[in-house]
């Protein structure tokens, strides 16, 4: 900012002591316009990102069975329908159970793997890191197909255990990734300090390492939960009639009976996600760990 008048003087070739009043005003208008010009793309991007979800939420309030947007009249009848339906209730319970299982499994495994890879000193460390992150690199439909063949032989198709394992495979890399970032930022002298105070390795890990990895673990857990809750490609192949998760049921509902009940259940899931994020962020600084 301080250089602006100097640059101006150089440009006009005039040694003005101070900019005159109209020019100052003009600059202010230009500065304001510049700020708007900078903010506009950002606002457009935000709109682009948020608009589909807003459309969905508003559509779920449609009083008629049409998907037309904007709705002609509003009602909560689709929420009543979804919450009263036996099928949706089963799917919701299944998805909820899977989220809990998958988050617990991937948080435990992912934390240990990430810590070992980030801080350990053993041959093949990089290979292990690549391996743990590999589900991110492979197209999901290929993972789905491999799991289908694999589970077929093990008799895990159309079982909760199968879905638990399948979702864990897809969600694990997110936890590994976020915990690795936390582990790399962890000051090793803190663990040495704890050891010098008499703490054995397990105690150091439990009382110093784990609390300091918590932001990464929580971020990874949120990713894992969202992944499990929204997973369609893998689930569609390894699930069956008895094990239809919410997203798979939404997927098939959209194909056959396109009414706003899917919008209602999606809006409910979205609200649940937002609620979890807000609560977690209140207690930790989640956004810093992401």
């Amino acid at each position: 900012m301080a250089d602006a008048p100097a640059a101006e003087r150089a440009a006009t070739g005039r040694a003005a002591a101070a900019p005159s009043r109209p020019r100052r005003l003009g600059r202010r208008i230009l500065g304001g316009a510049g700020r708007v010009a900078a903010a506009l793309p950002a606002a457009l991007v935000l709109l682009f990102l948020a608009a589909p979800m807003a459309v969905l939420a508003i559509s779920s309030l449609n009083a008629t069975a049409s998907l037309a947007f904007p709705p002609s009249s509003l009602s909560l009848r689709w929420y009543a329908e979804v919450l009263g339906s036996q099928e949706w209730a089963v799917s919701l319970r299944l998805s909820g159970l899977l989220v809990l299982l998958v988050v617990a499994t991937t948080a435990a495994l992912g934390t240990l793997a990430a810590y070992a890879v980030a801080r350990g000193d053993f041959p093949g460390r990089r290979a292990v890191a690549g391996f743990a992150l590999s589900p991110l690199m492979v197209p999901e439909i290929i993972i789905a197909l491999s799991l289908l063949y694999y589970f077929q032989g093990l008799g895990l198709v159309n079982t909760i255990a199968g879905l638990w394992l399948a979702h864990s495979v897809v969600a694990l890399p997110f936890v590994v990734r976020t915990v690795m970032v936390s582990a790399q930022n962890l000051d090793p002298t803190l663990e040495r300090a704890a050891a010098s105070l008499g703490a054995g390795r397990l105690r150091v890990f439990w009382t110093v390492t784990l609390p300091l990895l918590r932001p990464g673990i929580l971020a990874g857990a949120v990713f894992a939960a969202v992944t499990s809750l929204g997973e369609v490609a893998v689930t569609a192949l390894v699930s069956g009639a008895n094990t239809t998760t919410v997203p798979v049921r939404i997927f098939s509902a959209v194909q056959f009976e396109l009414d706003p009940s899917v919008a209602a259940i999606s809006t409910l899931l979205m609200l649940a996600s937002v609620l979890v994020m807000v609560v977690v962020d209140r207690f930790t600084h989640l956004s810093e760990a992401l």
Partner: protein
Amino acid sequence: MTSPDPLRPAPAPAAGPAAHVVIEELAAGYEGTRVLDVPELTIRRGEFLSILGPSGCGKTTLLNALAGFVRPSRGRISVDGADVTDVPPHRRGLGLVFQNYALFPHLTVAGNVAYGLKVRRVERAERRERVAEALRLVGLEGYADRRPRQLSGGQQQRVAVARALATRPAVLLLDEPLSNLDAKLRREMRVELRELQQRLGITMVFVTHDQEEALSLSDRIAVLNGGRVEQLDTPERVYRAPASRFVAEFVGAANILDGVADGGGVLRIGDTVLRTGLPGPERGRPAVLALRPERVRLHTAAAEPASADAGSGGAASGVLGYRAFVGDAWHSEVHLAGGATLSARTHAEPPPLGSEVTARWSAEDVIDLTTAPAEEAR
């Protein structure tokens, strides 16, 4: 000080019951390069020992070997007569203070100080008492519930000391604990640390690259260079009677006069000829002498002292090429005829730049390093 003469050599180390930490034949290195080679080092009970050296001299490796974080490739470390060479860090019972303090950010000040006590399963009531006592020791009674990041650097360092002392270790190891503090705070903490050590009678091993810190704090200093102990002695002796050219240059400033004796106490350094004040080695012999800048006096040709005085001691003539006021003294450089330069640190203001001056010094201030091991013989 039991010894009236600070220049008297320190008593022989490993003197029986006074020995607290004993290092024997210790060697450590990474991937074949040896970074530490200490045949023998004894730390006495209740002693403040500084390990002084430039970065990369192996001092941190030595400290980590004592703490148990570096496994020596050879040798033995014993504390209180017990061999701890293969004992893991958490069983050694030594206190450790780190350069970056290493306070646990997820715990309060009290939680940090209590950590070692919890590990030792100290009862809650006693724990609280000992935490309060440790915080009182470092003057942070009112800060128990703060988080480390809410404290200043000096306060964090005090918490680190309190945390290390709360478990009442027999030996406290300090790894450059003052180097992240600003100059004023560093001087204050120096006094505090020394007072604390003397009050508690605890053995402290203090690693530093700051010679002033080592001189002002220590009972003894071990000067480390290239992984070897060049000298282990009292601060006075390390300063006044350095064992090697490296020690002379690293601890305090020194004019190193490295030349060939010309007979009759005359030294020839290249084209420069000066009178050393010592009877000197015989003609043709190489000689290395050190002279502290503060021992050099400057005289202008006009104010030349009486010839009786001029006859004794050493002298060299030249032109004043640099002078600067450094607060408690003047620093000047004399360009001697023939190319050599001599630094002087005087209380009196030196004559103006370009003046013809004679630098003089007393014979007893000349440190003869001729027989000392060369700095880099390796």
